[in-house]
């Protein structure tokens, strides 16, 4: 049996999209088996930072053998990433986690050419929705929320039926959040896919639940191993009809993508 291990990727691009958000393109051995919504563990070079950083795969180009990552410079680790130069190497592990469902259990595709699909993203939850949008079939309406500056809009426009933007500051699109977009549009989707901050996901969940729409939500939680072994990255999930029927699932292994009615937000 061949065992998986940490791989070396070649940095083909590493540049700022906005002052805070950077794009990194990695040349990898293979992108086979990547599902939209999966992530990789990216390792810091500085030995004082032990834990891998989970970063979602924003695009996976099978032919080119590249992974595209979009990341926000938040702390020391992402700051280190932002300072890496083209053609430097970086260690990674993955793809990891359970991505979005593209096929039904019976092997048929989950969404059809004619279906209305709603894809809702916020902040650095936006990137993994790009590969998803590429691979899904159907009428894909994409609602994206940002603080001030948008990212990836042109990329989404290439693959989606409609792209609407909201920013908190009003600098781009409407002034407000994706929930405002949602309330203002007359959407009646057959399925919702969403990734973003907890508050947003919670609101999306409530909106979809009211309308009885199947949903897939991608969560984020602080991680250590990223492979399901340490149990630090759990989220509360429903296990039955009663309030007390819940358990902790692992965002890294059982997720990051969960069924919409499964996730329990505080």
């Amino acid at each position, binding site marked *: 049996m061949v065992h*998986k*291990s940490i791989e070396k990727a070649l940095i083909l691009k590493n540049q700022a999209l906005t002052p805070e958000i950077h794009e990194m393109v990695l040349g990898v051995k293979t992108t086979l088996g990547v599902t939209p919504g999966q992530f990789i563990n990216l390792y810091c070079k500085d030995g004082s930072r*032990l834990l891998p950083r989970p970063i979602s795969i924003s695009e996976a180009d099978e032919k080119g053998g590249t992974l595209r990552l979009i990341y926000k410079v938040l702390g020391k680790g992402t700051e280190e990433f932002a300072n890496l130069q083209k053609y430097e190497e970086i260690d990674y592990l993955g793809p990891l986690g359970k991505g979005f469902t593209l096929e039904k259990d019976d092997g048929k595709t989950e969404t059809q050419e004619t279906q209305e699909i709603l894809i809702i993203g916020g902040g650095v939850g936006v990137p993994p929705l790009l590969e998803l949008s590429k691979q899904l079939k159907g009428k894909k309406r994409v609602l994206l929320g940002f603080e001030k500056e948008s990212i990836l809009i042109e990329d989404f426009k290439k693959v989606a039926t409609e792209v609407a933007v909201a920013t908190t500051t009003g600098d781009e699109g409407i002034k407000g959040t994706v929930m405002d977009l949602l309330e203002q549009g007359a959407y009646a989707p057959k399925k919702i896919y969403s990734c973003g901050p907890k508050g947003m996901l919670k609101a999306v969940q409530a909106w979809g639940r009211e309308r009885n729409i199947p949903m897939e939500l991608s969560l984020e939680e602080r991680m250590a*191993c990223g492979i399901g*072994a340490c149990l630090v*990255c759990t989220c509360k999930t429903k296990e039955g009809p009663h309030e007390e029927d819940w358990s902790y699932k692992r965002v890294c292994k059982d997720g990051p993508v969960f069924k919409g009615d499964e996730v329990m937000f505080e």
Partner: protein
Amino acid sequence: MSKSEKRPNLAVKLSGVELKNPIMPASGTFGSGKEFDEYLDLNRLGMVVTKGVADVPWKGNATPRVAETYGGMLNSVGLQNPGIEHFIREDIPFLQNYNTRTMVNIAGRSIEEYVRVVTALQNQPVDLLELNISCPNIKEGGVAFGTDVDMAYRVTKKVKEASRQPLIVKLSPNVTDIVAVAKACEAAGADGISLINTLLGMKMDIKTRRPLLANTFGGLSGPAIKPVALRMVYQVAKEIKIPIIGIGGITTWEDALEFILAGATAVQVGTANFRNPRVMVEIIEGLENYLKEENIDGIEELIGAGHE
């Protein structure tokens, strides 16, 4: 390696159990092995040590449960586990597929809870038991068993009576006198001592100006704590006769060797698995090379060799 060359002998005997090598995962960092199956051959390990299991399912603490620290990490998982029944049904059969020793780590909040777990394991194909007495929330007196000499003695004695397998007691480093606790466990019949569990620590989130972990405090692990762990192994090795499993920050074969020289018969690798899921195999290979280069027949010669 040519066939004629002698393969360096990494085998050790731990509390009566033969291990092919002294390297094993630290409890709670390796799941029950399943999650690492994709990354390494479980048969290469000296033993598999499973995550802590209690008599009934425990849900653990709220998130965030992890914080990175300089050269280490804090966790506040709170011993989330699906309970002994589930463990026996799901995990033991899985481990039976491998030609590897198994040690089950036991969690509990009272002597009765511990005893229930080891009783349930009496007829199971498990080689060793590791009693975790460093859990901060337990019934008696509100202090962890592991931080009180008398309680450490009592719980070890009771659990030992109920165990069919050799019993290793895993101690907390958050004590003034680790030697006294280790001696109490030895006197109570422990077959070995695991040293150390995590150091109690915390981190502030300067953005929210609140503790970062939902649980405020967490257990510090990783290379940062290695000097403390090594010191405790060295101190305890001078004073007890039962074997010691060294734990704390082990990341390289050199780290493992330091613990063996300090008196550990075997060592556990914890946090390092999170950075490199294949690290234990690399440590085993590193020790093999070392023995070859230094012309040492067997690693058992080196156990405690660092004491004059």
